[in-house]
């Protein structure tokens, strides 16, 4: 049984455990509750109440009362999911069937795969809280998320009708343009941290202070002070590119409701539509998580030790990581319900004429500062 012995069982089981925890216990519930938050926050902004009714129907299980916790409506995501599953799954007659069926999966999967390189905590019971700690983690996330565009393009093309096609075309050019800005705006971080490994970038921030907030380690030196400006620039360009990459307002041209009905998923219904929806929100979470890792110190909070001091601290690290992600998600939602949509030429101009140049100059600036303070 040499084959069985050669399998590193501990690694296999911990990886499986981490994957299940990350995907099914954290990210997917987070996706559905981000949708809920989207509705509630938009309601707050527009002076409405939003979905505040759907509780958990415990009376169906024989309890005396329905459980409707403090905010009300917390059962809404579950009701939404049930609705998506039960709806009729319609495949229009004019579509290119194999690709039409392939597209939703292609939209969902890359977003989930990117999470595998994400260090979402320090250490828990001696296990590193990252599914695959590869030394090119950042590039891996960029690479896989760039594959995500195929889902949208294929959906647009396979639907074989005008609006989805226009949505697909728009998203292709938008994603290619902004991928460049996103990659370039992350380069200063790599220069400062000296590694493409996400856990090493976090390690650097634990010891030297968060890149966007260099006082979190309690001291401030000339290098950090000088690096603050390029880091803020990098953060702004990175966040803007992230909005464009995840097709969020103000850059949601691929699915702009008022011009393209729903863009690339106009022809989709039921669970296939839900997959696009999930993919979009998962990409949003992955993007926010990446921003947290790059600029906001990952799982690190000042005065809180890492997980090697005990499982409680490990759990707090994980919680603080997802807490930061949740704050960024709120920001995503807040921006969405504040800004109108950009015009297409404005979008392209912003990407190629401004963000691209700013990111490039920023790289030279950072490199210069690093050489100066070396």
């Amino acid at each position, binding site marked *: 049984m040499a084959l069985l012995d050669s399998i590193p069982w501990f690694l296999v089981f911990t990886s499986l455990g981490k994957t299940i925890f990350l995907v099914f216990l954290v990210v997917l519930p987070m996706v559905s509750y981000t949708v809920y938050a989207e509705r509630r926050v938009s309601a707050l902004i527009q002076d409405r109440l939003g979905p505040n009714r759907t509780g958990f129907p415990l009376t169906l299980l024989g309890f005396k009362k329905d459980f409707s916790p403090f905010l009300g409506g917390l059962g809404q995501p579950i009701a939404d999911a049930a609705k998506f599953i039960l709806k009729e799954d319609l495949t229009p007659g004019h579509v290119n069937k194999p690709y039409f069926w392939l597209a939703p999966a292609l939209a969902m999967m890359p977003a989930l795969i990117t999470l595998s390189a994400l260090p979402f905590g320090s250490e828990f019971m001696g296990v590193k809280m990252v599914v695959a700690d590869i030394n090119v983690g950042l590039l891996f996330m960029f*690479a896989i998320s760039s594959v995500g565009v195929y889902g949208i393009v294929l959906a647009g093309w396979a639907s074989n009708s005008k609006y989805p096609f226009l949505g697909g075309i728009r998203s292709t050019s938008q994603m*290619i343009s902004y991928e460049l800005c996103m990659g370039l705006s992350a380069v200063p971080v790599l220069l400062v941290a000296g590694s493409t490994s996400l856990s090493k970038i976090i390690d650097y921030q634990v010891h030297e202070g968060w890149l966007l907030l260099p006082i979190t380690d309690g001291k401030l030196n000339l290098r950090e002070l000088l690096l603050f400006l390029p880091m803020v620039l990098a953060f702004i360009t990175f966040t803007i590119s992230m909005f464009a990459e995840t097709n969020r307002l103000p850059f949601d041209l691929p699915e702009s409701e008022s011009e393209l009905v729903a863009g690339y998923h106009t022809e989709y219904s039921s669970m296939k539509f839900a997959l696009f929806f999930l993919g979009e929100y998962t990409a949003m979470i992955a993007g926010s998580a990446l921003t947290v890792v790059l600029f906001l110190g990952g799982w690190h909070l000042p005065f809180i030790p890492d997980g090697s001091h005990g499982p409680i601290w490990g759990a707090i690290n994980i919680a603080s990581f997802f807490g930061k992600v949740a704050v960024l998600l709120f920001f995503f939602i807040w921006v969405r319900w504040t800004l109108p949509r950009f015009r297409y030429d404005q979008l392209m101009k912003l990407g190629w004429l401004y963000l691209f140049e700013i990111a490039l100059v920023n790289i030279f600036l950072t490199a210069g500062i690093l050489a100066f303070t070396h």
Partner: protein
Amino acid sequence: MSPLLFWIFAALMLVFGIGVIINRNPVASALSLVASFLCLAALFVGLNAYFIAVIQVLVYAGAVMVLFLFIIMLLDLREEQRRRFNLLAVAGGALVSLGFVAELVLVLRKFTLGQKPFAPIAQVDDVRQIGMTLFSTHNLPLQVTGVLILVATIGVVVLSKRDLK
């Protein structure tokens, strides 16, 4: 990497590679090419060359092929699907590729260096390694390539501007 994984990904890559040629639908061909790129990246991962694997996905699957697909979709390539197989062309193509394979076999059999197993490289930061090599020993070719690409870019801009007038 387990040999099993190598054979699986190698076989998949060949299958998708053949798919690129025999698919009548250009979009399907392009997608097969993407899939075969992804399998190639998996093979690179098997060699512990993470950086090259990731760049393979990022550049080829994520950018170049998206542009290809973009253009294929913009052109209406129905003609391609209707065209029948030309027996003579198929035979000619087969002949040329067989000749190429024969040549490869002949050359590679004499290339004894490839048959020797290399000593496994201990844990290296392959990004650093590649950067060092590129910017020290191969600096001139890198600069020349950069200038070449710049010239090409300027040329494209000039050509497309002239069309507008």
